[in-house]
């Protein structure tokens, strides 16, 4: 199968993404040919991103861990049906999001936070410095509060809006990629994104500086 021909019809917008998709499809071919161990390469490559998107949707690290594993199991079981009509990354994201949404719908009434520690190094330190001049324990407490408020505000969003803003702002997917992952139009993605940002601005006004 001509990979470049296959991927022209998908949401792969940059040459880097296209290269990545080609490399993934080659690995998928190996797995389909019976080289089960080759699937480990895909797990190692995507586990953090898959975990990240599930974690940001569920706000629970234990659930995110379970659901990430479930996502990879499902992908492994269905790998023979992957025809390369979209990139492996998009396909895996679809599985992850569907698995998470299914879990969230089932446990709508049972939701509690279990958050990872916020790492205040690198680019984050600069944002945090802009927010507060506290140091030491006070700074940690402030960050903890900020993290909880941020997650609370995200959890108040509907699942489609939360998914869109998570994929766009946190995972850095393009509108086209999100539209493909969520099976909707780019217009819908933009609209949801706009609404979600407005909502978060209202919820997090205390922490914003303009």
């Amino acid at each position: 199968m001509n990979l470049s021909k296959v991927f022209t019809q998908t949401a792969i917008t940059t040459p880097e993404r296209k290269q990545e998709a080609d490399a993934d499809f080659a690995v998928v071919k190996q797995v389909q040919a019976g080289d089960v161990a080759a699937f480990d390469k895909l797990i190692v490559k995507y586990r953090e991103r898959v975990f990240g998107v599930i974690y940001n949707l569920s706000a629970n690290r234990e659930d995110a861990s379970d659901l990430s594993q479930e996502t990879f199991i499902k992908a492994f079981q269905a790998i023979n049906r992957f025809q390369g009509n979209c990139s492996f990354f998009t396909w895996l994201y679809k599985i992850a999001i569907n698995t998470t949404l299914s879990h969230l719908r089932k446990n709508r009434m049972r939701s509690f936070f279990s958050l990872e520690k916020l790492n205040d190094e690198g680019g984050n330190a600069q944002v945090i410095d802009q927010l507060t001049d506290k140091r030491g324990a006070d700074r940690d407490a402030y960050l903890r509060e900020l993290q909880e408020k941020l997650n609370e505000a995200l959890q108040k969003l509907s699942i489609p809006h939360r998914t869109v803003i998570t994929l766009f702002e946190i995972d850095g997917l393009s509108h086209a990629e999100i539209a493909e992952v969520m099976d909707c139009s780019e217009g819908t993605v933009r609209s949801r994104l706009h609404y979600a940002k407005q909502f978060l601005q209202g919820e997090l006004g205390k922490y914003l500086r303009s």
Partner: protein
Amino acid sequence: MPHHSKVSVEDLLRLKRAERPGPEFWTNFEGELRQRQLTALVQKRRWWHELSTLMQRRIYLPAGAAAILAFTLVAVRYSVPNRIAQDSIPAAVTARVDSAVEELAPTEIPVSIAAQVLGSSEATGVAPHATHVTPAASDSFADAAITATIPADVSPSQRSMNTSLTRLSQSEPAFLEPLLDERLNAPVRAQPASIAQAEVASMTASTSSKYRLIARYVDRSLSPAPTPPAVVRERLARRLGDDINDDISRIGVVGSRVSLKF
């Protein structure tokens, strides 16, 4: 002192990228995932998983068509045997009526049977006690001879009763003739068949299948019944109706085979 530069929603959301688990988390994650992967390899997928896969492949239309076809086949399969059972009821009921008549013969039926026996005897020129046959030696021969005198269109039960009565009249003429004379000379006790048929015809349509069978029985000219005819007939009809229902429930039709439960 915070730097009062611009902080947007995007900046806050970008903070969430920093919420990442440590390396030890990934070690556990890998171990658990490998274990689950092995389980998934060993575990056989259930049929409903395959079904959901098929649904995902968007085979709604063929699946719907197959479901409709299956429903139609089932409907036809269950409706045709019912019809066959309805058609087969008269034969089964006739057999039951035959046996009932045989049971009732000594007490309630002799009048008509005797009349028929006499009639047939006269018609064929065979005297009721013209020959004296030793029962033990020639029962079967005598039966065959008597049976040969009975018209072919008479049912087996009636034929049997005729045979029995003929034999009785041959062996015990002194007992049977006065009895038959008395019975035959009491026309008021015999109910004409037309009245019986009118009674049956007056029965409600809701029980038509049951009473149609009774009508068939009546039409066999097993009447006249003993006094009071209406009461006895009603009782008999009720009993037969119950028996018929019982018999119908014992009839099973599977494909082209008919089975009877005893």
